[in-house]
């Protein structure tokens, strides 16, 4: 793997890339690549061993723990950077080989609020429109999405909409690059989004910018929504949103009468203990105008990972079976049992999601964990709690291509594969299934992920259910398993994907063209065919500011790093672009705290702290600081975050907790003293 060349023929991005995509090819031959399975030996450390020894140990420990403590005492973590084939395999592995209820995935930290909201209102967890509808929209609302840094490719779509006369509204506590060009930038307080959404709806009702005919014909529940937003006058809403009332009115004036519109949202409104509520309040703005299911009229939730969409459809969620089926639904269970050739009773019921799994480990109820495609030590909230949990595990196996911070806690590390070392599919933010070719083989003794899982399954007595000769065979089974489900891939083949440059699900049969746009003709996915409005009332975050911790901390990303940083912090040019986390702080707040640009500051919550440099900028609310989360250990933003989760989606509240910020002297610990490129702060 020596370089990259943009593929300009692919319709979604036409060769466009972000800086991470440019440097992505460097991971295959990276010197840090795990090239053999590792076993931790007391007094020595990680020792490379044979695959037989490693897999025997993992299987042995799974069996021992389950014999001693019960099946559910062993948990699995998957991830949304796995291909569809591997995501499907993890779900099947959990229910058929390991027979545990406790499987979940890192998308729990990402798309679940959006997914739950979309399912409640529309009956489907998928963006409603292809991206080609964005430039046709005359009003666009981007809520809680730092598009320029977290979904750079979407930027051109937004700019094109503006070139076509569309108006852009951006809601974000920070003025990000897309906010700078917005026709209306709303510096909403973290967690105050419902103020804007309900306030806008209030004004729209007042001014008659509601499609009552559409509502009558195609929806239920409007009366309750109208009742709830009656009190959300601009002034009332403004107090919740933390912005001037005039902004909310102006937003309604842009969005309300527009002939076409597109709503996009991401973690900014979803990473809350009321994340699902936030999303439903936003979706109300779409459904109330009837501007959905038509050209230029749409709704989308922006994914956070390459397979954020596909990775949440084929069963690696604690409550899900393939095809976006429900693990508690008797018909769904029976169908999947048939596909897998197992008794329906043998399929476990709903298990715990990611944060409750960590809590169960902490409480001694879960004793073993196998994780792939995630780095919980960096990505989960309240890092010190996660660390304690990891240390309590009796056995931990990590499948990975680098020795991540999580892998360092493992007893066995299995050397897995990158996307380019395997063949398979992912499903993009539009619901378009994409085919990835294999370019090279995994290096040295690293193995393709799905073969590792199948070998483990064989050692657990399920060899006959995991006898795949290729990832294509897994996809063929996935097609069958998803057949008739909401996320129906049955009509999709790798060949069709190649020919048609991607196929949008649902695609129930070989002659079905796929479904780029959902809800055409006002047909929604509930049994009654209607969209179900959900009334939303605002409530505070789990941890609001107080006299002891008077500043809001919000967390997020930077463009040159990816998630836990285990892939990007190893690439020089990406580290050069953004070497260390900094604390963004407004000059008004900085002056009050006697902090100047470049000073080291301690950002501290009840749970932990970081010491980073201050970046004094006017482009953030003066009551809020921002620290990006791509770094581990004493630079981890998740040292501070709170372990509160949304009761419906179980997503952690990454976007708001209470901190205090103080100037400190430069750190002199061993890590800090390293050169910048090695992780130091000089």
């Amino acid at each position: 793997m020596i370089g990259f060349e943009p593929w300009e023929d692919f319709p979604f991005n036409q060769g466009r890339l972000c800086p991470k995509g440019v440097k992505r090819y460097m991971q295959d031959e990276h010197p840090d690549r795990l090239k053999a399975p590792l076993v931790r030996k007391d007094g020595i450390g990680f020792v490379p061993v044979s695959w037989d020894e490693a897999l025997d140990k993992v299987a042995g420990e799974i069996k021992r723990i389950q014999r001693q403590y019960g099946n559910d005492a062993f948990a699995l973590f998957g991830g949304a950077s796995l291909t569809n084939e591997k995501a499907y395999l993890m779900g099947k592995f959990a229910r058929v080989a390991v027979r545990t209820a406790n499987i979940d995935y890192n998308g729990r930290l990402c798309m679940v609020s959006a997914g739950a909201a979309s399912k409640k209102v529309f009956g489907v967890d998928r963006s409603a429109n292809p991206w080609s509808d964005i430039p046709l929209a005359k009003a666009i609302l981007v809520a809680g999405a730092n598009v320029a840094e977290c979904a750079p490719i979407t930027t051109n779509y937004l700019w094109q909409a503006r070139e076509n006369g569309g108006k852009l509204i951006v809601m974000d506590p920070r003025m990000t690059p897309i906010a700078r060009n917005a026709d209306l930038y709303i510096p909403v307080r973290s967690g105050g989004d419902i103020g804007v959404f309900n306030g806008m709806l209030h004004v729209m009702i007042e001014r008659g910018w509601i499609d009552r005919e559409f509502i009558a014909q195609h929806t239920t529940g409007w009366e309750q929504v109208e009742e709830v937003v009656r009190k959300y006058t601009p002034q009332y809403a403004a107090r919740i949103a933390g912005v001037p009332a005039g902004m909310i009115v102006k937003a309604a004036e842009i969005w309300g009468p527009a002939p076409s519109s597109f709503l996009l949202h991401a973690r900014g409104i979803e990473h809350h203990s009321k994340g699902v509520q936030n999303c439903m309040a936003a979706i109300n703005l779409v459904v109330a105008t009837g501007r959905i299911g038509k050209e230029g009229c749409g709704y989308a939730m922006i994914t956070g990972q390459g397979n954020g969409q596909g990775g949440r459809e084929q069963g690696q969620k604690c409550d899900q079976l393939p095809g976006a089926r429900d693990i508690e639904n008797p018909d769904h269970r029976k169908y999947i049992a048939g596909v897998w050739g197992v008794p329906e009773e043998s399929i476990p019921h709903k298990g715990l999601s990611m944060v409750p799994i960590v809590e169960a480990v902490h409480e001694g109820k879960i004793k073993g964990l196998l994780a792939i495609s995630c780095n919980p030590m960096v990505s989960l909230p309240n890092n010190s709690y996660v660390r304690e949990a990891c240390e309590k595990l009796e056995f931990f196996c990590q499948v990975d291509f680098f020795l991540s911070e999580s892998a360092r806690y493992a007893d066995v590390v299995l050397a897995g594969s990158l996307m380019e070392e395997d063949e398979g599919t992912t499903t993009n933010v539009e619901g378009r299934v994409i085919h990835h070719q294999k370019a090279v083989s995994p290096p040295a003794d690293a193995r393709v992920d799905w073969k590792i899982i199948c070998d483990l399954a064989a050692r657990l007595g399920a060899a006959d259910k995991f006898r795949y000769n290729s990832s294509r065979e897994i996809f063929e089974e996935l097609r069958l398993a998803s057949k008739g489900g909401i996320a129906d891939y049955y009509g999709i083949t790798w060949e069709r994907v190649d020919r048609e440059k991607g196929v949008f699900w649902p695609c129930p049969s070989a002659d079905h063209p796929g479904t780029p746009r959902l809800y055409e003709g006002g047909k929604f996915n509930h049994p009654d065919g209607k969209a179900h409005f959900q009334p939303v009332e605002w409530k505070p975050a789990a941890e609001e500011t107080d006299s002891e911790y008077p500043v809001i901390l919000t967390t997020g990303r930077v463009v040159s790093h990816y998630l836990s940083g285990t892939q990007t912090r190893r690439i020089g040019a990406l580290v050069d672009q953004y070497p260390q986390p900094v604390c963004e702080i407004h000059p008004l707040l900085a002056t009050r705290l006697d902090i100047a640009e470049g000073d080291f500051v301690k950002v501290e919550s009840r749970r932990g702290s970081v010491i980073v440099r201050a970046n004094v900028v006017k482009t953030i609310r003066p009551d809020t600081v921002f620290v990006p989360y791509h770094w581990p250990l004493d630079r981890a933003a998740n040292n501070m975050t709170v372990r509160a989760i949304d009761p419906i989606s179980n997503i952690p509240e990454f976007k708001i907790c209470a901190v205090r910020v103080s100037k400190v002297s430069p750190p002199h610990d061993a890590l800090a003293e390293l050169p910048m490129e090695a992780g130091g702060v000089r």
Partner: protein
Amino acid sequence: MNGPENMEFFMDHSRCIGCRACVQACEECDTHRGVSMIHLETIMRPDSVQTAPQVCMHCDEPICAQVCPADAIKKTDDGVVQSSLKPRCIGCSNCVLACPFGVPKYTVEINQMMKCDMCYDRTSIGKRPMCATVCPSGALAFTTRENIERTRQGLAIREWQFGGEIVRTKVNVLVPRNVDRVDVTIEQIDTTGTDEYDVARLLAGD
């Protein structure tokens, strides 16, 4: 993808999101690996997130070539100004000082000036320059004038004024429709503040 010969380079600073995909991609070229020829400027981060790319403008009458005492900078027949010729460049930095856009940079390790040559190895065979290919915001585009006129509200112009000097370039810049020439007037950075992007001011309802 091969394109017609009437492809031109268009720069729209207002679209730039500062992602540096252009910088990261440019420095992948084996001719100058690790050193980007495109420059990505952050204008004034304390005040704003605004960023601006700078490629070589491939001037009609390249000032860098005119001031070079070693005749090391050549322009091709299709108007692309090449980087310095290794056997000729003496590392005097006349061009670095003379270019009004700040494009050529002197590298002490090789004692030579290097600058953007519009990915001549790509454009000469009908491929796009790498920066314009990867740019996710469309701030950099390599396309036909017709396409720009059809899809952009801005006007593509190729004339700049620096003090008393008019500079005509091959590379287009997108400007508001009432502008026919970019007039660059030197401003004092620290005294010309911008509160336009001060979130505190926006919240106060100013």
